[in-house]
């Protein structure tokens, strides 16, 4: 990951069965150390770590594009059931599954020989006997492994003349309110079953019956209950499991894919923001061994909705006749400056969802611009978390108690937590990006709101108390860095361009300076 600037974290708790450091293996410089074993793949010889499978060696050295696979997923135990990844090993009588065969010293492997290609064509033809040709309706089309591999290895024609198998009762089955199952499309790779068994350990899914009638079912009547259901829809190689929130919203080939960070909790999962015309359609996790592995939770996955919320304030608002009106940033700041100059005491509360850069900027620049001594403190207020010491893991995987992304990063700037979680000044400037809580305050507390606020949140203040709202940018729209719960600093860049009237904190401070 090019986005990460620091790597000082213990290994994540989930043991990833993966060639996660996709770098070549180097021999130990110590002359007495044993030389690394060597394997020959497609005519080239590579070093490998003892214990690597053929697939992992090929993955590390990027032999061809990739060895095709359905059942193998780097984050899960190996099953070796789909037979798509078979390769030819010299002196072995039959083809071997590269995902489950450990590489051995002196092994000679052919990944694209005629025998292998013929086998893959056969596997594809069998998978397609029952797979419906509904790609136009299927949401997976465009990012579907069945499509990709069929294009590359498939026979193009079929010898199968019979009627295709149809699961009448499971064509559009809601496994939960988040995931829909279309059993007709399933290729029985069982990634989903192994995910619930071994990664989330909730044992939600099971394959019932055998052979032609093999079918995916939830183990309980409640259906899927785990918090990582979105991952099922990510790694499902076909469109059998689809994410309801994204279902039928957009075709995958229209989507712009840019890396960013999830700011839903203090974990800081690496995500890809999928957008079209600067409208976000979904978040998808991207692999980062140090932070989130391959996964992300459902809450984080749907957290983009607070940024695409139509009630989000995306223009500077100024109080006039006890009501808020949209205005220019210059007018708003000029007006605020008068209020702030006359106030006896001012308190600046930085939410722990501010980036490190924003926290440093606010702490340094805002008191000098206003020209007063201002008490600057930070406030978290999610799930009862006050400081990073209160933060803890909620489960074995990713979920954290602290629902703001940068508590550690803000603490690092030398700010102190807000005493008693209550503001106590003439005017309070509340900076938050929609994730941190709103501190307690007295009924007639005058406030200046800065960052990301929705109309609903504004209603929680009496309208005459709000002096102005300075609209700010969301994580996916700005640049900065967060320090997550494990102490990793992760830098991110804008994934989409903000189309409203909101400005970054740096821009606001820049304008504010010129007004003095």
């Amino acid at each position, binding site marked *: 990951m090019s986005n990460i600037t620091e790597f000082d974290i213990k290994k994540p708790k989930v043991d990833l069965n993966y060639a996660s450091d996709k770098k070549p293996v180097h021999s130990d410089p110590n002359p007495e150390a044993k030389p690394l074993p060597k394997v020959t793949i497609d005519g080239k010889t590579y070093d490998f770590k003892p214990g690597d499978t053929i697939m992992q060696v090929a993955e590390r050295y990027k032999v061809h594009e990739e060895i095709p696979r359905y059942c193998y997923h780097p984050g899960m135990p190996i099953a070796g059931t789909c037979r798509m990844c078979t390769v030819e090993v010299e002196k072995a009588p039959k083809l071997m599954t590269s995902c489950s065969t450990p590489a051995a010293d002196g092994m000679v492997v052919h990944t694209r020989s005629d025998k292998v290609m013929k086998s893959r064509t056969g596997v594809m033809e069998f998978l397609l006997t029952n797979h419906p040709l509904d790609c136009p*309706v299927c949401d997976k089309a465009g990012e579907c492994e069945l499509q990709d591999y069929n294009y590359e290895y498939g026979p193009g024609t079929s010898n199968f003349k019979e009627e295709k198998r149809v699961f009448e009762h499971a*064509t559009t089955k809601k496994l939960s309110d988040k995931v829909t199952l279309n059993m007709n499309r399933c290729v029985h790779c069982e990634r989903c079953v192994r995910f619930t068994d071994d990664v989330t350990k909730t044992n939600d899914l099971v394959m019932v019956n055998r052979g032609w009638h093999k079918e995916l079912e939830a183990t309980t009547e409640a259906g899927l209950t785990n918090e990582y259901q979105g991952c099922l829809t990510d790694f499902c190689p076909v469109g059998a499991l689809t994410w309801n929130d994204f279902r039928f*919203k957009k075709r995958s080939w229209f989507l712009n894919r840019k890396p960013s960070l999830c700011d839903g909790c203090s974990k800081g999962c690496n995500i890809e923001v999928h957008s079209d015309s600067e409208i976000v359609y979904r978040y998808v996790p991207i692999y980062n061994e140090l932070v989130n592995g391959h996964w992300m939770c459902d809450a984080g996955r749907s957290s983009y909705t607070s940024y695409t919320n139509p009630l989000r304030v995306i223009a500077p608002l100024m109080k006039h006749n006890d009501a808020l009106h949209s205005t220019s940033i210059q007018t708003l700041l000029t007006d605020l400056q008068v209020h702030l100059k006359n106030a006896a005491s001012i308190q600046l509360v930085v939410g722990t969802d501010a980036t490190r850069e924003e926290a440093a900027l606010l702490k340094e620049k805002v008191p000098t611009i206003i020209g007063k001594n201002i008490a600057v403190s930070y406030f978290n207020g999610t799930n009862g978390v006050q400081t990073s010491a209160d933060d803890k893991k909620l489960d074995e995987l990713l979920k954290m108690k602290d629902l703001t992304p940068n508590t550690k990063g803000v603490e690092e700037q030398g700010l102190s937590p807000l005493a008693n979680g209550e503001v106590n000044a003439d005017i309070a400037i509340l900076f938050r990006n929609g994730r941190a809580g709103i501190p307690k305050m007295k009924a007639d507390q005058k406030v200046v709101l800065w960052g990301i606020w929705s109309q609903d949140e504004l209603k929680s203040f009496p309208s005459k108390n709000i002096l102005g709202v300075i609209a700010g940018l969301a994580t996916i729209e700005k640049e900065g860095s967060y320090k997550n719960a494990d102490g990793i600093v992760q830098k991110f860049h804008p994934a989409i361009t903000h189309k409203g009237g909101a400005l970054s904190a740096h821009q606001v401070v820049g304008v504010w300076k010129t007004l003095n």
Partner: protein
Amino acid sequence: MGTINVSKKYTAKEKAYLPAILIGMKITMKRFIQGFLFRKHDTIMYPEKKRDYSDRFRGMHFISVDKNKTENCTACYLCETICPAECIHIVADERDEEHNPYGVKKEKKPVSFDIDALRCCFCGFCEEACPKDAIKLSGNYELAVSSREEAIYDLDHLKRDMNGRREK
């Protein structure tokens, strides 16, 4: 570089212009007699009479319907993807489960399907790309409108029960 004069001198026949005029008048009279006396025309009396084009003619699009008058379109966006003029705009959604006798085959539907006929270049790629034979190009070539907005046709306008490419 001077100017090169390429004009040639008129011949004697060209100078005596009357023969040429008579040849022209002969053609004029021939056509006059053919049209006026024997009713033989190369033009038609549009719009009372319409020109009959071949079946391959590509005119205004329509969206075919099944016997329940439900559109065949499943909002797969293939026409929007292939359209070189970017004149098709689709918004998709899930069909209401209670009003969906087709099951999984038509679980996705277009909520809106707009074609901007002014942008369209009538290349017929959309028809070629359509996996459901839903969007087709009819023989309708009368596309005059009085404002640009009228040239954006929506789903209600495009949905037609047609006999092949021709009006029933």
